[in-house]
């Protein structure tokens, strides 16, 4: 039986959302955002369109964190988890998605919460993602009176465009664990563009013309993502093609709120009002609200920021500060969105030798510099026969941060400045709506598109992938043997396609795991399968967690050396599959799958 609904899920770093549309209704589709039932405070459940992607583990002193469908639950996902997490930080998991994409740790190992209280059993980033998805499934089932759950639906799950093959795999692993039987991955910036198309109906074609290049800027709570999508004429019809994606940048709205909180906090401290951790958290909240008011009302010069006392005496104990326009402009606009030259690239702070286990946060907060670096590679650089570097002609904003008009204006102004230096016209702004929910809506719409209703963005894999091959060389003390990179999957491989290595053979010993170094590149768009790079710049190829192949002894004798050929394919789900195919098979179609996310944490990643 075919699935009744197309479901889009935005599994976000700070918030998740779900939208759905009936698949069978004949003519008019209707994308609806699910109001997600969740615990909002101890003992009360409410429905909200956004589910904060936080996980809270109850302490023995607390009652059960009951939900309408489970009275005995001892953990919570959503609003309550977030607010309670501020009060008991050792019991909460936040930003689990950033951990999911960080190859420096074993993402199937119980590592979260990072500084967990001793009575908490830590869980893995994959399980944290599973629990958020599982909650969405339960809420969907409850909203449909138990008649439908997500296992039977066509689920489109969005991931940052910058997620590498391993992180995409782990996301699917979490979705399968949650029981989703038909799941497909979609890049978030593409989902945002789908939402824009769905919102405009057929009229979108009058906004975009062949030759247009859309820059999608997606700034969420925790991450920033850039993509370029081209409108091209294909057989007389307009088609969209995603041509470039940026690196994974761990920088977002939460950083901005914290920055403002520190500014106001320092002012309060100078006036003799010391804040504790709780008040600093409340201050970040107050600053977010203050920032939004200042951006939405140009006549305001400052807004009052009042921190309630922690005791029951509200008067006398509360602290009053203010957030001034000049501060917001200096620290937010000039700190995160400085007017910079197109040639100015983000500073890389050298990492300290011994760092605590932690996420690789972006060391330069200037989003405009990250954008400059992205455009320098994909839009402003020298064009080659295979690399089309044209400046963008249109821009689509996405992510809650960009609800602030002042931030959008600054980004636009900076970008248009760069364009005019190149004698290129200003970009047109594609008006998006509801920047918090667009990704989920767009993903649900993509589910419909897969059924032939509407236009599909072509793109394929966002990177080229390489395995590292150590060249035979005499051992020299202190010198690492040189590594060649062999392209196994080119940029832009489409779903369902294969790429077999032409000639190269690898030899694998049966029963013994073989580990390969693994690399990805978002810039080498013209390499084909089999391209061998004898040398490469570190900024061209990014080393990913190692991959591993173990030939099971079945059918062969242990210790036997087998010649294999590598083959990459992109599954219907949208994940990358690497296989080793026996050159001299002993059974028909003898092949083994290469593990992308090696279970033991043997990767250094740094």
């Amino acid at each position, binding site marked *: 039986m075919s699935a009744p609904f197309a479901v889009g899920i935005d599994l976000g770093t700070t918030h998740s959302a779900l939208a759905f549309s009936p698949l069978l209704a004949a003519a*008019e589709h209707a994308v609806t955002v699910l109001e997600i039932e969740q615990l909002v405070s101890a003992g*009360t459940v409410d429905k909200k369109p956004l589910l904060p992607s936080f996980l809270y583990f109850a302490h023995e002193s607390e009652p059960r964190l009951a939900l309408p469908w489970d009275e005995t639950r001892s953990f919570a996902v959503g609003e309550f988890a977030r607010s309670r997490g501020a009060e008991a930080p050792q019991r909460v998991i936040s930003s689990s998605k950033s951990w999911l994409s960080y190859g420096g740790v074993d993402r199937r190992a119980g590592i979260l919460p990072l500084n967990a209280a001793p009575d908490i059993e830590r869980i893995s980033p994959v399980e944290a993602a599973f629990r958020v998805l599982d909650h969405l499934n339960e809420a969907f089932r409850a909203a449909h009176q138990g008649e439908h759950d997500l296992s039977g639906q066509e689920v489109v799950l969005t991931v940052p465009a910058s997620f590498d093959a391993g992180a995409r795999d782990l996301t699917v692993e979490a979705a399968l664990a949650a029981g989703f039987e038909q799941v497909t991955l979609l890049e978030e910036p593409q989902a945002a563009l789908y939402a824009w198309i769905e919102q405009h109906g057929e009229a979108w074609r009058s906004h975009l013309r062949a030759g247009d290049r859309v820059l999608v800027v997606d700034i969420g709570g925790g991450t920033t993502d850039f993509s370029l999508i081209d409108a091209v004429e294909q057989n007389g019809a307009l088609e969209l093609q995603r041509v470039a994606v940026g690196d994974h940048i761990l920088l977002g709205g939460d950083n901005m709120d914290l920055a403002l909180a520190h500014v106001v906090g320092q002012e309060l401290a100078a006036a003799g009002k010391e804040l504790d951790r709780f008040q600093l958290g409340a201050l970040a909240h107050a600053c977010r609200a203050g920032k939004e008011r200042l951006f939405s009302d140009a006549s305001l010069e400052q807004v009052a920021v009042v921190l309630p006392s922690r005791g029951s005496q*509200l*008067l006398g104990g509360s602290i009053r500060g203010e957030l001034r326009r000049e501060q917001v402009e200096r620290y937010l606009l000039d700190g995160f969105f400085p007017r910079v030259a197109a040639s100015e690239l983000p500073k890389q702070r050298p990492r300290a030798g011994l760092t605590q286990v932690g996420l690789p946060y972006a060391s330069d907060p200037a989003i405009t510099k990250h954008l400059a670096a992205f455009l320098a590679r994909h839009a402003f650089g020298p064009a080659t026969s295979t690399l089309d570097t044209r400046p963008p002609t249109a821009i689509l904003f996405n992510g809650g941060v960009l609800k602030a008009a002042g931030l959008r204006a600054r980004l636009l102004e900076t970008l248009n400045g760069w364009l005019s230096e190149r004698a290129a016209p200003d970009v047109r702004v594609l008006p998006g709506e509801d920047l918090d929910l667009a990704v989920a809506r767009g993903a649900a719409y993509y589910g419909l598109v897969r059924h032939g209703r509407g236009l599909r963005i072509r793109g394929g894999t966002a990177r080229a992938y390489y395995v590292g091959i150590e060249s035979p060389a005499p051992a020299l003390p202190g010198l690492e043997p040189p590594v060649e990179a062999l392209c196994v999957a080119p940029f832009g491989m489409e779903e369902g396609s294969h790429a077999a290595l032409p000639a190269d053979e690898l030899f694998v010993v049966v029963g013994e795991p073989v580990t390969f170094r693994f690399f990805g590149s978002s810039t080498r768009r013209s390499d084909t399968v089999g391209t061998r790079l004898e040398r490469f710049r570190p900024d061209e190829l990014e080393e990913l967690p190692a991959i591993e192949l173990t030939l099971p002894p079945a059918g062969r004798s242990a210790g036997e050396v087998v010649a294999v050929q590598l083959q990459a394919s992109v599954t219907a789900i949208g994940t990358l599959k690497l296989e080793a195919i026996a050159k001299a098979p002993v059974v028909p179609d003898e092949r083994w799958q290469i593990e992308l996310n090696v279970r033991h944490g043997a990767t250094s990643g740094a």
Partner: protein
Amino acid sequence: MGPRFGCLASSALWIDYPIVDCAAMMVRSVSLLERLWLSWVCWFRVLFDARFAARVAELRSGSPAPELPSAPHPTAEATTGAASPAALIERARANGALQLLTLFQREGRLLDFLEQDIVSFADAEIGAAARLVHEGCRRALHAHARVAPVRHEAEGSALTLEQANGDVKLVGNVSGSAPYRGVLRHRGWRIEGLRLPQVVGSVDHRLVAPAELEL
């Protein structure tokens, strides 16, 4: 916002019901036949359900104010998970007033504000606190209630009322018969919809804010 982009919340979730007469609801009379049946059912549940028994014991000793149920209605409790919408509405009604106070306290510190003696404080300080209470309580109010003016005309403008109805209170020189001509002094407010969070598990609704102990 066309129907294509509609949110479930805007229509389906708002429970539009008249404001109930709480006094009538609190003391519902139970017929002899109903009581017979109830005692029979309870005899078994007291015997086999320890939690239920504990609550009955509490009720009998009269320790928590019996007119304010501290736990969900027992019959609704028995069928949680698949509680009927009617039972859920019933639950929400019984504790609605306390829930609202909880919300206003949590979001806007209303009880803290009302319970503090503000006589000795300067207006500036009261103003700062009022901002906080206003912002939080307003957010809570708008998240849970749809508030609309009864009359949309500007206050101070002349208004002719063709017929007397409960929506408009006549003040001043109240005499004569319709149509009534006068000046609109207050536009009035009406709660067009009230949506309170659902309560799950056994929660003491009277606990509007728990005490806090920092470890």
